[in-house]
């Protein structure tokens, strides 16, 4: 190419390699796409911008930058597959809402659990968004449908859940007794219920027997 440029004269059109350089520079620096007519108008007399464009386009084939036709004009753009480089992702970590934590806890302790069961235990309805959020986090997934009227879907916790919380299995979740020992359960079981932890657990096991 440098050899070619030496042939450049004031009276002849510059060699094609040089014309290609010119088109390249104009397209790079221009604030908007440039038409072939405008390219020819800006380049020295006798240049053939259309031909230079063909060469330039070929040169940039497969590269990080592309020569594109935009309507009637031409422009250079970064390659579409590298768009991710033009984004700076900032990850913001937020604490899960109380409703989501409770729903997750119920699923973890009682899985497989239906929405109705979750609502019964929490005593309030579970919003669609809460379950969706947990599904999206891939901490819960759908389990087998319950063989009861309406065949409701059940939720179970996932391997991601176990990984995140550092558990071997959902069975490793501390029981009520351990929660109490850890000071997490301050209150006695409601008077008159006589429900000791193990009993409560047994009852759950019975309840969900066929599933576990």
């Amino acid at each position, binding site marked *: 190419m440098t050899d070619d440029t030496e042939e450049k004269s004031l009276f002849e059109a510059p060699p094609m390699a040089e014309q290609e350089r010119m088109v390249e520079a104009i397209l*790079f*620096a221009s604030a908007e796409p440039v038409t072939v007519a405008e390219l020819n108008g800006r380049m020295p007399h006798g240049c053939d911008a259309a031909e230079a464009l063909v060469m330039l386009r070929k040169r940039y084939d497969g590269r990080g930058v592309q020569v594109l036709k935009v309507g009637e004009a031409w422009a250079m753009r970064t390659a579409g597959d590298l768009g991710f480089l033009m984004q700076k992702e*900032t990850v913001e*970590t*937020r*604490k899960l809402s109380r409703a989501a*934590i409770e729903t997750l806890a119920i699923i973890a302790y009682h899985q497989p659990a239906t929405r109705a069961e979750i609502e019964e235990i929490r*005593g309030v309805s579970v919003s669609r968004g809460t379950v969706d959020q947990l599904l999206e986090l891939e901490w819960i997934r759908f389990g087998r449908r319950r063989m009861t009227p309406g065949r409701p879907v059940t939720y179970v916790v996932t391997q991601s859940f176990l990984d995140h919380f550092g558990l071997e299995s959902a069975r490793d*979740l501390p029981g009520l007794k351990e929660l109490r020992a850890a000071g997490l359960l301050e*209150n006695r079981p409601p008077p008159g219920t006589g429900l000791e932890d193990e009993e409560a657990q047994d009852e759950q096991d019975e309840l969900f027997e066929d599933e576990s």
Partner: protein
Amino acid sequence: MADDVAQFEEDTVDARLAAEALIVDVDGYEGPLDLLLTMARTQKVDLRKISVLQLAEQYLAFVEEAKALRLELAADYLVMAAWLAFLKSRLLLPPDPSDEGPSGEELAAHLAFQLERLEAMRKCAAQLMARDQLGRDFFARGIPEDVTRVRRVTYTATLLDLMQGYARIRTKDDFRPFVMDREKVYTMEQALDRMRGLIGFAGEWTTLSSYLPEGWETDPVKRRSATAATFAATLELVKRGALELRQGETFAPIEIRRKEGA
């Protein structure tokens, strides 16, 4: 010569006093050093070989002429003139061995250095401005693509959050309006009520611990509270003359007995 210097010093003072009056700067020169550099160029020699004496005379002549033309010179031109007159005297007179200051040659060499340095900087400035410049000779990207910031939110929770959450649900039924949680506190009033009913059976010396209420003996926290309350209640009853109290030795069991005739 000394008179000349004095004369210049006077002029400097005058110039200062006239500071508020119109001061005609020397047109086209960026200060006395610039003027000197222009004069030095007229010598048509390498700045390193310049005759500083000749330069000083040239400058002083210029200042004289300006005065003759009744042009008021800016103060720094006059300061330079005074200094050059001093330098000239140093260069012309034989060095005084008792004089400690720098020699005329040293001062002259420094002036020559200053001129050479100024000239060099002028050349550098010219070279710099002659370079290809961004936005004039070479160009940046015309349609810069900004980095878009994508904010992704992830949620997290700890095992403790999970356990606390579960504990909260499982104990929800226990939640009641706030009261002091006294489940493990046995009050003196409770103990008194209990003891009043029991002392009738305390004909023999019996250890205090046997009077603890049922269900309060095993849990250490409850036992402590019940023991304290019961002991306080017995003291109250002793004070009223209903009971007798004894302890064999330090830390020995405390024993009580109904007071005869009470």
